[in-house]
């Protein structure tokens, strides 16, 4: 069944969109990532104009994250206080990111920089997580002892300490705010929620327990993507409501299944799966940059339409 999208101005198969939404929703619920890093390239692939894909994806992530976070709230695995602190940074970062994005756009190389950002961050984050989870898995097999807490380093020497009861942390609010800003900038530039960067940052930099990380990440992503959606809707008019609805019907249902699957898997397994997926997307993007494209010319809208 074909549906004409009013903003994207293309006709697409509704079932393809429902399927894509469902697939990405499952991943979203499992890993606490918005799934944008996967969905945005997929939307390009089925012929949605990039500007519309990025803006609409933000709107869809709001839905799947909200659906996912409700399940986590019920299981009490959301650290609202930490989420709030991350959010403050996130909103500042998203606003900054839009400025950076528009500057790069004026240079005419925004596509390349977005792709390089993807390859770089997905590559680094994916490899780190993969190595870490392998180590954690082999450790938990050898000695069934709980992994010792990270060394008290620079993070604990900073001022403005706050107690995060749900995460069991007493740390300065500076690192979470910085994490929030960085993720916000990346989110705006790459057109994603930023969960794939935030989840590892929360685990490895802030030392939060994995079970809490997913819910808290989703909680923060809702607000950052809602903010991005409004920004795109009011400045570029590129949010396609029909596209968003089709994606989110699949997405919200998928997210529920994802959360159920995630609850059954061990934290290490969850991490290693996420790491593998991140590396896979990274490899695909890197491959496309290196291999000669079949068509060397591409068309773009000049001066907006």
């Amino acid at each position, binding site marked *: *069944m*074909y*549906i*004409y999208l*009013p*903003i994207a*101005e*293309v*006709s697409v198969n509704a079932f393809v969109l429902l399927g894509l939404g469902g697939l990405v929703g499952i991943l979203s619920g499992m890993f606490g990532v918005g799934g944008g890093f996967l969905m945005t390239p997929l939307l390009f692939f089925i*012929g949605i104009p990039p500007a519309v894909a990025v803006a609409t994806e933000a*709107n*869809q992530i*709001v*839905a*799947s*994250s*909200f*659906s*996912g976070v*409700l*399940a986590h709230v*019920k299981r009490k695995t959301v650290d609202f206080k930490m989420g709030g602190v991350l959010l403050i940074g996130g909103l500042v970062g998203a606003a900054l990111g839009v400025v950076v994005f528009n500057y790069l756009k004026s240079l*005419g*190389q925004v*596509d*390349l920089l977005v792709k390089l950002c993807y390859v770089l961050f997905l590559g680094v984050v994916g490899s780190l997580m993969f190595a870490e989870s392998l180590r954690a898995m082999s450790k938990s097999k050898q000695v069934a002892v709980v992994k010792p807490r990270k060394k008290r380093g620079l993070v604990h020497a900073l001022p403005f300490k706050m107690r995060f009861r749900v995460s069991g942390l007493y740390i300065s609010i500076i690192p979470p705010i910085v994490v929030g800003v960085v993720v916000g900038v990346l989110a705006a530039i790459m057109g994603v929620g930023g969960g794939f960067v935030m989840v590892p940052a929360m685990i490895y930099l802030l030392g939060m327990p994995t079970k809490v990380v997913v819910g808290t990440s989703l909680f923060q992503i809702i607000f950052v993507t*809602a903010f991005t*959606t*409004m920004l*795109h*809707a*009011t400045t570029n*008019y590129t*949010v396609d*409501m*029909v596209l*968003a*609805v089709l994606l*989110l*019907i699949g997405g*919200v*249902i998928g*997210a*529920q299944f994802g959360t159920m699957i995630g609850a059954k898997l061990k934290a290490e397994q969850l991490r290693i799966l996420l790491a593998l997926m991140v590396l896979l997307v990274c490899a695909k993007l890197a491959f496309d*940059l*290196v*291999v*000669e*494209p079949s*068509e*060397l*010319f*591409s*068309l*773009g*809208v*000049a*001066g907006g*339409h």
Partner: protein
Amino acid sequence: MQGFFARVLLVLLALAGPVSAQDIVLGMSKNEIGITAFFNGSEILIFGALKHETAASSAGDLDVVVTIASPRYPVTVRRKDKRLGIWVNVEAFDVDLAPSFYAVATTGPFDRVVSEASDLWHQISVRQLIRAVTVPPSTNNKDQFTEALVRVREEQGLYQMLPGSVQLQEQTLFSTSVSLPSNLVEGAYSARIFLMRDGEVVSQYQTAIDVHKVGIERWLYNLAHERPVVYGLLSLAIAIFSGWAAAAAFRLLRG
């Protein structure tokens, strides 16, 4: 500026010339295309008759050319090249105006039906249509960019060359059909019919086809552009509601 005057001159010449619209009687299956939620392309049938005097007078067979063009917009064409091991955009070229959709249907092979001079004069082939308005003399390799634009859009089915698809019976009745793709952009499309003899335009006729969104498509598009804040908030409300509804439904299912 020079290009502008040249075009004005062309129009004046066309008006003053011997050709007149009265030589062609035209009918179309529709002169309006409504883009609904389930729009998946459209086929348009164009038919007509040539006045007897025109058809009968002098020797030489008649040919008919039908073109359908969307409004024209500026396009940026970018070229990739290998730099430091990866493929990046290295060169860009702005085409001032190019139609997002263009179809040319003819009774025979294009080169036989339309002489180079009349193509230049009336901008019948898509290459002329693009080239005619793009003359920054500084760019020396602009041809490769306009060729690329045509190639890419031909592959997307947006530019269609349809030689031999116009049927002409008894030198009087002609008909053709053009299928418009689903990724159609709104606007006032123009249909031109050229009556050709020995590659020269004997007569021409032009009419408009209105392509516009209707129903919910129209409503959403207007809302997004006229009340963007309301539209954005509505999108978010739908997202939050669906997220909640799915979570609630699953909670019920699991008891």
